[in-house]
């Protein structure tokens, strides 16, 4: 285990920048966000959690696949190749680190491998960062309900924790081990630090956010049972505006659209995030739309995350980070809906 002074984080950041690309939390107008760091001083770990999830490090909002010129022959189109330096994703909260494993199922785990996701994933070392034991939750999140600890190193390569004025760093994977031993700005941690580290992880597991744990199979079954209970779904979607704020900030929403975007003759075929809450998400070429009503779309979102996903892959597609609740313009709380469904 290694450590560094909290105020010397910029030294650590500078060292990581020398080894590759550093993506870390930066304070912006509306809150913190993960950004590529150009100045080591920008890195700011005094955050609760970021506004947007760190999924964009592997699955950017826009990803170019092919560039073409309309006036040229089709075979002259150029595939966009990814040439990545090592990437360091710094300061990922435990629930978000868990989200990458869920996303892996879709981008590489089911046989169809997304080369862009895979390359980015392989190039990246994840620095997990435990929630501050003094402020482990802000009222919107519910990660412990989904069995994720406030200081859960799972999913990280290196796990970090704040201890007073110091930042402790512990390697979790061999990849993390190699990197950690090469960082000269860090000093060795003491026995006390190691004890604190283990104690905090244990304490993180006993910390409880709102809602009690319910077996995912029970939730999945219940949602399946009430799928056709339109009255229930209409009631819970009365407030929903059907905007895409919840899906865009979500760490486990992975839907996208492939678009051709052209300016004069130059074009690019790209992948852009899409959201199941948009009316045109399910609009078919014939003009038919199977999900025209708000309740149908919200039902799809809830059932996909907590029911279909469990049935198909065995896990809930949600990590309880609370971003959707925090950013909903009308305060819809996703797990309150599940909670109500269980009482139906």
């Amino acid at each position, binding site marked *: 285990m290694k450590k560094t002074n909290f105020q010397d984080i910029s030294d650590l950041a500078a060292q990581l920048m020398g080894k590759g690309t550093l993506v870390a939390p930066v304070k912006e107008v509306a809150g913190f966000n993960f950004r590529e760091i150009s100045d080591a001083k920008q890195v700011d770990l005094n955050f609760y959690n970021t506004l*947007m999830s760190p999924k964009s490090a592997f699955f950017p909002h826009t990803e170019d696949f092919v560039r073409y010129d309309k006036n040229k022959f089709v075979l002259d189109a150029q595939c966009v190749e990814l040439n990545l330096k090592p990437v360091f994703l710094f300061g990922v909260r435990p629930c978000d680190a868990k989200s990458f494993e869920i996303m892996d199922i879709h981008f590489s785990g089911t046989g169809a491998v997304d080369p862009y996701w895979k390359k980015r994933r392989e190039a990246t070392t994840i620095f997990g960062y435990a929630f501050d034991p003094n402020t482990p939750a802000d009222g919107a999140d519910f990660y412990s309900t989904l069995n994720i600890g406030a200081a859960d190193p799972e999913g990280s390569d290196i796990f970090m924790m704040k201890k007073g004025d110091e930042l402790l760093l512990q390697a979790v994977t061999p990849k993390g081990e190699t990197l950690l031993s090469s960082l000269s700005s860090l000093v060795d941690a003491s026995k006390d630090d190691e004890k604190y580290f283990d104690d905090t992880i244990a304490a993180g597991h006993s910390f409880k956010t709102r809602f009690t744990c319910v077996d995912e199979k029970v939730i999945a079954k219940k949602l399946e049972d009430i799928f056709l209970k339109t009255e229930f779904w209409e009631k819970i979607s009365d407030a929903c*505006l059907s905007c*895409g704020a919840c899906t865009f900030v979500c760490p486990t929403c992975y839907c996208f659209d492939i678009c051709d975007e052209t300016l004069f003759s130059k074009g690019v075929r790209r992948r852009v995030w899409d*959201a199941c809450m948009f009316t045109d998400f399910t609009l078919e070429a014939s003009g038919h739309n199977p999900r025209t009503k708000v309740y149908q779309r919200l039902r799809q979102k809830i059932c996909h995350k907590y029911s279909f996903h469990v049935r198909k892959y065995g896990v809930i597609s949600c990590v309880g980070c609370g971003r959707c609740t925090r950013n909903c313009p009308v*305060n819809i*709380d996703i797990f309150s809906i599940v909670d109500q469904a269980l009482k139906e």
Partner: protein
Amino acid sequence: MSINFKQIEDKLKTEAKKLLEGGKVSIVLAYGKGYDEKHPMPYVARKMSDVENMVFNEFCTANMARYLVRYPRGTKIAIAVKPADSRAVIQLIQEEKIKREDLVILGIPVYGMKNFKTGETIDSKTTCGRYNPVIYDTLLGEEVHGQPVVSPYDVLAEYEKMDKDARWAFWKKELDRCIRCYACRKACPMCYCDPCFIDQNKPKWGEKSPESHGNLMYHLTRFHHLAGRCVDCGECSRACPVDIPLYLFHKKVAKECEEMFGQAAGMKIEDKPALVNFRVDDSDKILE
């Protein structure tokens, strides 16, 4: 005098019960419990038993007029409106999206509302700065008098000092942050187009990816589609997850419209929307 939110809530419940019981309306659009006290939600009461879940406190900022167009024409609806929301109702009536006779308007005179995301008090900076609903059938509470009269356009002072280039740079910078979640248009009571121009792809008006030109296309077009129609409720700015100050543009356009056509959006049912109505004596300022 300060606003007695509890009293308004009680009156809201009494009125809602009365209306539902008498069968005068089939739904009541108001506010209900959220996941905690500081996060109430828009709420639709259909049955008498639903009324108990209603709340009204300083965090009930949502503009319920947004939901009016969701129900089939002819549905009898009771709606709780704050000052700016009442203007949205009038504007929707002017635009023939709803009929006055289908509505029971429960007016709420109010000030000192709070943004549930930041906890900040909402004033004329992001809203129309009125204290009393412009139209109502029943007033829940007492009319507010004696509060300072403020212009909703005061906040534009800094913005108006910028020249053309500075404004362009300002909006490019602000709109570059847009993530295209469309919370602004979905929270807007006047954004009822189906489909919205930006969702069309034959022809395609703007790119889907959240980059400069697509963002500018979407927002600038939306700003202008709301010219003379925006009631300045500020919901778009509050809905925005990345805090883009959309209200600045809307207020600026509203101010210009008001100066040019002598009419603010959603003030009188008899008015026609400024940009729909042709009058011989209309201002030609725009051509000069």
